[in-house]
Protein backbone atom coordinates (compact mmCIF):
# COMPACT_ATOMS: atom_id res chain seq x y z
CA UNK A 1 0.00 0.00 0.00
CA UNK A 2 1.32 3.41 -0.93
CA UNK A 3 -0.15 6.50 0.75
CA UNK A 4 0.58 9.93 -0.57
CA UNK A 5 -0.22 13.08 1.46
CA UNK A 6 -0.34 16.34 -0.48
CA UNK A 7 1.74 18.52 1.86
CA UNK A 8 0.50 21.73 0.24
CA UNK A 9 -3.13 20.75 0.72
CA UNK A 10 -2.88 19.24 4.25
CA UNK A 11 -4.15 21.68 6.87
CA UNK A 12 -2.70 19.72 9.80
CA UNK A 13 -6.06 19.21 11.49
CA UNK A 14 -5.02 15.73 12.66
CA UNK A 15 -8.39 14.12 11.95
CA UNK A 16 -6.77 11.26 9.99
CA UNK A 17 -4.38 10.66 12.92
CA UNK A 18 -7.30 10.48 15.34
CA UNK A 19 -9.58 8.38 13.13
CA UNK A 20 -7.17 5.72 11.86
CA UNK A 21 -7.51 2.58 14.02
CA UNK A 22 -4.08 1.34 12.96
CA UNK A 23 -2.15 4.55 13.71
CA UNK A 24 -0.95 4.85 10.14
CA UNK A 25 -0.56 8.65 10.35
CA UNK A 26 1.40 10.99 12.55
CA UNK A 27 1.52 14.77 12.59
CA UNK A 28 5.01 16.06 11.86
CA UNK A 29 5.55 19.83 11.65
CA UNK A 30 1.78 20.32 11.36
CA UNK A 31 1.51 18.04 8.34
CA UNK A 32 0.13 14.51 8.32
CA UNK A 33 2.68 11.83 7.40
CA UNK A 34 1.85 8.18 6.67
CA UNK A 35 4.43 6.56 8.95
CA UNK A 36 3.02 3.04 8.93
CA UNK A 37 1.49 2.53 5.47
CA UNK A 38 1.76 -1.26 5.72
CA UNK A 39 -0.69 -1.16 8.60
CA UNK A 40 -3.37 0.36 6.36
CA UNK A 41 -6.24 -2.02 5.61
CA UNK A 42 -7.87 0.32 3.09
CA UNK A 43 -11.00 1.39 4.95
CA UNK A 44 -10.64 4.93 3.53
CA UNK A 45 -12.14 6.59 6.62
CA UNK A 46 -9.27 9.09 6.33
CA UNK A 47 -10.41 10.01 2.81
CA UNK A 48 -13.92 10.62 4.04
CA UNK A 49 -12.83 12.71 7.02
CA UNK A 50 -10.03 14.78 5.39
CA UNK A 51 -11.40 18.32 4.88
CA UNK A 52 -8.62 19.17 2.42
CA UNK A 53 -8.85 15.98 0.31
CA UNK A 54 -5.09 15.73 0.67
CA UNK A 55 -4.82 11.94 0.68
CA UNK A 56 -4.17 9.42 -2.05
CA UNK A 57 -3.96 5.63 -1.68
CA UNK A 58 -2.35 3.50 -4.35
CA UNK A 59 -2.79 -0.23 -4.79
CA UNK A 60 -6.05 -0.36 -2.92
CA UNK A 61 -9.03 -2.66 -3.46
CA UNK A 62 -12.08 -0.51 -4.16
CA UNK A 63 -15.19 -2.19 -2.73
CA UNK A 64 -18.25 -2.61 -4.97
CA UNK A 65 -20.65 0.28 -4.68
CA UNK A 66 -24.22 -0.79 -5.16
CA UNK A 67 -25.70 2.32 -3.63
CA UNK A 68 -24.73 4.59 -6.48
CA UNK A 69 -27.89 5.41 -8.40
CA UNK A 70 -27.11 4.96 -12.10
CA UNK A 71 -29.93 7.30 -13.15
CA UNK A 72 -28.69 10.08 -10.84
CA UNK A 73 -25.15 9.61 -12.19
CA UNK A 74 -26.42 9.83 -15.78
CA UNK A 75 -28.17 13.11 -14.96
CA UNK A 76 -25.06 14.45 -13.21
CA UNK A 77 -22.91 13.59 -16.22
CA UNK A 78 -25.17 15.79 -18.32
CA UNK A 79 -24.74 18.72 -15.93
CA UNK A 80 -21.05 18.38 -14.99
Amino acid at each position, binding site marked *: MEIHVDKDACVGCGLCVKDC*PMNVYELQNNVSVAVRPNNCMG*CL*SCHEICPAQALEHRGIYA*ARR*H*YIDIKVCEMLRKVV
Partner: protein
Amino acid sequence: MSAGYIDEMHEAFHSDLVYRSEDIPLECSPKPREMEQTLHGVMKLNGLVIRSLEEIAGRGANAVTYRAGKKFGHEVAKYFQKREDVEGALHELSDLLRGQYSFEVWKPEDKETFIIEENGETFIYLVFHDCIVRQTLRRNGLEQGGPLCQTLFGYVVGAIEEITGRKAKLEIVHTGPNACLKKLILK
Protein backbone atom coordinates in the same frame (compact mmCIF):
# COMPACT_ATOMS: atom_id res chain seq x y z
CA MET B 1 -60.56 3.03 -14.49
CA SER B 2 -60.82 2.99 -18.27
CA ALA B 3 -61.12 -0.28 -20.19
CA GLY B 4 -58.17 0.79 -22.38
CA TYR B 5 -55.90 1.03 -19.37
CA ILE B 6 -56.98 -2.41 -18.12
CA ASP B 7 -56.32 -3.96 -21.56
CA GLU B 8 -52.94 -2.27 -21.63
CA MET B 9 -52.15 -3.67 -18.19
CA HIS B 10 -53.22 -7.19 -19.20
CA GLU B 11 -51.15 -6.86 -22.34
CA ALA B 12 -48.06 -6.01 -20.30
CA PHE B 13 -48.38 -9.22 -18.30
CA HIS B 14 -49.14 -11.49 -21.25
CA SER B 15 -46.57 -13.48 -23.22
CA ASP B 16 -46.36 -16.51 -25.50
CA LEU B 17 -43.84 -18.18 -23.21
CA VAL B 18 -44.46 -21.85 -22.41
CA TYR B 19 -43.40 -22.46 -18.83
CA ARG B 20 -43.24 -26.03 -17.55
CA SER B 21 -43.04 -26.89 -13.88
CA GLU B 22 -39.82 -28.87 -14.47
CA ASP B 23 -38.12 -25.87 -16.08
CA ILE B 24 -35.23 -24.68 -13.95
CA PRO B 25 -34.16 -21.09 -14.53
CA LEU B 26 -30.45 -21.04 -15.42
CA GLU B 27 -29.85 -17.34 -15.14
CA CYS B 28 -31.23 -14.26 -13.43
CA SER B 29 -34.12 -12.63 -15.16
CA PRO B 30 -34.13 -9.79 -16.00
CA LYS B 31 -30.50 -8.74 -16.49
CA PRO B 32 -28.81 -7.23 -13.38
CA ARG B 33 -28.78 -3.77 -15.00
CA GLU B 34 -32.58 -3.87 -15.12
CA MET B 35 -32.70 -5.01 -11.48
CA GLU B 36 -31.23 -1.79 -10.16
CA GLN B 37 -34.56 -0.38 -9.08
CA THR B 38 -35.42 -3.64 -7.32
CA LEU B 39 -32.07 -3.65 -5.55
CA HIS B 40 -32.51 -0.07 -4.40
CA GLY B 41 -36.06 -0.89 -3.26
CA VAL B 42 -34.82 -3.83 -1.17
CA MET B 43 -32.00 -1.73 0.29
CA LYS B 44 -34.43 1.05 1.16
CA LEU B 45 -36.87 -1.38 2.75
CA ASN B 46 -34.13 -3.09 4.77
CA GLY B 47 -32.91 0.27 5.99
CA LEU B 48 -36.39 1.29 7.09
CA VAL B 49 -37.02 -2.04 8.84
CA ILE B 50 -33.77 -1.69 10.76
CA ARG B 51 -34.42 1.96 11.65
CA SER B 52 -37.91 1.13 12.94
CA LEU B 53 -36.66 -1.90 14.84
CA GLU B 54 -34.05 0.26 16.53
CA GLU B 55 -36.65 2.91 17.41
CA ILE B 56 -38.98 0.35 19.01
CA ALA B 57 -36.63 -2.22 20.49
CA GLY B 58 -33.66 0.07 21.30
CA ARG B 59 -30.55 -1.90 22.14
CA GLY B 60 -32.57 -5.10 21.95
CA ALA B 61 -32.56 -4.66 18.17
CA ASN B 62 -28.96 -5.85 18.05
CA ALA B 63 -29.84 -9.08 19.81
CA VAL B 64 -32.71 -9.76 17.41
CA THR B 65 -30.67 -9.17 14.26
CA TYR B 66 -27.64 -11.03 15.61
CA ARG B 67 -29.82 -14.03 16.40
CA ALA B 68 -31.40 -13.92 12.94
CA GLY B 69 -27.98 -13.77 11.27
CA LYS B 70 -26.63 -16.59 13.41
CA LYS B 71 -29.52 -18.87 12.54
CA PHE B 72 -28.98 -18.08 8.87
CA GLY B 73 -25.25 -18.83 9.19
CA HIS B 74 -25.90 -22.21 10.85
CA GLU B 75 -28.59 -23.02 8.28
CA VAL B 76 -26.43 -22.25 5.23
CA ALA B 77 -23.17 -23.74 6.56
CA LYS B 78 -24.61 -27.08 7.57
CA TYR B 79 -24.33 -28.26 3.96
CA PHE B 80 -20.63 -27.41 3.85
CA GLN B 81 -17.73 -29.68 4.68
CA LYS B 82 -16.89 -29.73 8.39
CA ARG B 83 -13.31 -28.75 9.19
CA GLU B 84 -11.38 -28.30 12.38
CA ASP B 85 -8.82 -25.79 11.11
CA VAL B 86 -9.90 -22.18 11.22
CA GLU B 87 -8.07 -21.24 7.99
CA GLY B 88 -10.01 -23.94 6.12
CA ALA B 89 -13.25 -22.81 7.71
CA LEU B 90 -12.59 -19.23 6.63
CA HIS B 91 -11.95 -20.47 3.10
CA GLU B 92 -15.30 -22.28 3.14
CA LEU B 93 -16.89 -19.14 4.53
CA SER B 94 -15.55 -16.93 1.74
CA ASP B 95 -17.14 -19.34 -0.77
CA LEU B 96 -20.34 -19.16 1.20
CA LEU B 97 -20.42 -15.38 1.23
CA ARG B 98 -19.32 -14.85 -2.38
CA GLY B 99 -21.35 -12.24 -4.21
CA GLN B 100 -22.60 -10.60 -1.03
CA TYR B 101 -19.45 -10.11 1.01
CA SER B 102 -15.75 -10.49 0.39
CA PHE B 103 -13.14 -10.58 3.11
CA GLU B 104 -9.50 -11.36 3.74
CA VAL B 105 -7.52 -12.30 6.82
CA TRP B 106 -5.31 -9.45 7.87
CA LYS B 107 -2.59 -8.66 10.40
CA PRO B 108 -0.78 -5.51 11.55
CA GLU B 109 2.86 -5.44 10.43
CA ASP B 110 4.21 -6.12 13.92
CA LYS B 111 2.41 -9.48 14.15
CA GLU B 112 4.02 -12.58 12.69
CA THR B 113 0.99 -14.81 12.23
CA PHE B 114 -2.64 -14.27 11.30
CA ILE B 115 -3.82 -16.16 14.38
CA ILE B 116 -3.02 -13.73 17.18
CA GLU B 117 -2.88 -14.53 20.88
CA GLU B 118 -3.18 -11.50 23.12
CA ASN B 119 -4.45 -10.94 26.66
CA GLY B 120 -5.56 -14.54 26.95
CA GLU B 121 -7.70 -14.56 23.82
CA THR B 122 -7.08 -16.04 20.38
CA PHE B 123 -8.33 -14.05 17.43
CA ILE B 124 -8.00 -13.36 13.72
CA TYR B 125 -8.48 -9.96 12.09
CA LEU B 126 -10.82 -9.98 9.11
CA VAL B 127 -11.10 -7.09 6.67
CA PHE B 128 -14.47 -7.02 4.95
CA HIS B 129 -14.23 -5.33 1.56
CA ASP B 130 -17.45 -5.86 -0.41
CA CYS B 131 -20.45 -5.78 1.91
CA ILE B 132 -24.12 -5.50 1.04
CA VAL B 133 -24.85 -4.30 4.60
CA ARG B 134 -22.49 -1.32 4.23
CA GLN B 135 -24.05 -0.46 0.87
CA THR B 136 -27.54 -0.59 2.38
CA LEU B 137 -26.57 1.62 5.32
CA ARG B 138 -24.91 4.19 3.10
CA ARG B 139 -27.84 4.12 0.69
CA ASN B 140 -30.09 5.05 3.63
CA GLY B 141 -27.71 7.42 5.41
CA LEU B 142 -27.56 5.16 8.46
CA GLU B 143 -24.63 4.76 10.81
CA GLN B 144 -22.42 1.71 10.41
CA GLY B 145 -22.00 -0.78 13.24
CA GLY B 146 -25.69 -0.90 14.24
CA PRO B 147 -28.27 -3.70 14.10
CA LEU B 148 -27.89 -4.41 10.37
CA CYS B 149 -24.17 -5.07 10.90
CA GLN B 150 -25.17 -7.53 13.63
CA THR B 151 -26.87 -9.73 11.01
CA LEU B 152 -23.51 -10.15 9.30
CA PHE B 153 -21.84 -10.79 12.66
CA GLY B 154 -24.35 -13.49 13.47
CA TYR B 155 -24.00 -14.93 9.99
CA VAL B 156 -20.19 -15.23 10.22
CA VAL B 157 -20.27 -16.58 13.78
CA GLY B 158 -23.04 -19.08 12.97
CA ALA B 159 -21.20 -20.34 9.88
CA ILE B 160 -17.82 -20.62 11.67
CA GLU B 161 -19.44 -22.48 14.58
CA GLU B 162 -21.20 -24.84 12.19
CA ILE B 163 -18.07 -25.57 10.13
CA THR B 164 -15.51 -25.90 12.96
CA GLY B 165 -17.72 -26.95 15.87
CA ARG B 166 -15.98 -24.25 17.96
CA LYS B 167 -17.63 -21.29 19.64
CA ALA B 168 -16.74 -17.93 18.13
CA LYS B 169 -17.45 -14.20 18.53
CA LEU B 170 -17.03 -11.28 16.17
CA GLU B 171 -16.21 -7.74 17.26
CA ILE B 172 -16.09 -4.51 15.28
CA VAL B 173 -12.72 -2.82 15.43
CA HIS B 174 -13.38 -0.15 12.83
CA THR B 175 -15.93 0.67 10.14
CA GLY B 176 -15.06 2.64 7.02
CA PRO B 177 -16.59 3.58 3.68
CA ASN B 178 -14.42 1.11 1.74
CA ALA B 179 -13.64 -1.66 4.25
CA CYS B 180 -14.33 -2.70 7.84
CA LEU B 181 -11.96 -4.35 10.29
CA LYS B 182 -13.39 -7.10 12.45
CA LYS B 183 -11.94 -9.39 15.06
CA LEU B 184 -12.96 -13.05 15.02
CA ILE B 185 -12.45 -14.34 18.56
CA LEU B 186 -12.11 -18.09 18.88
CA LYS B 187 -13.11 -19.87 22.08
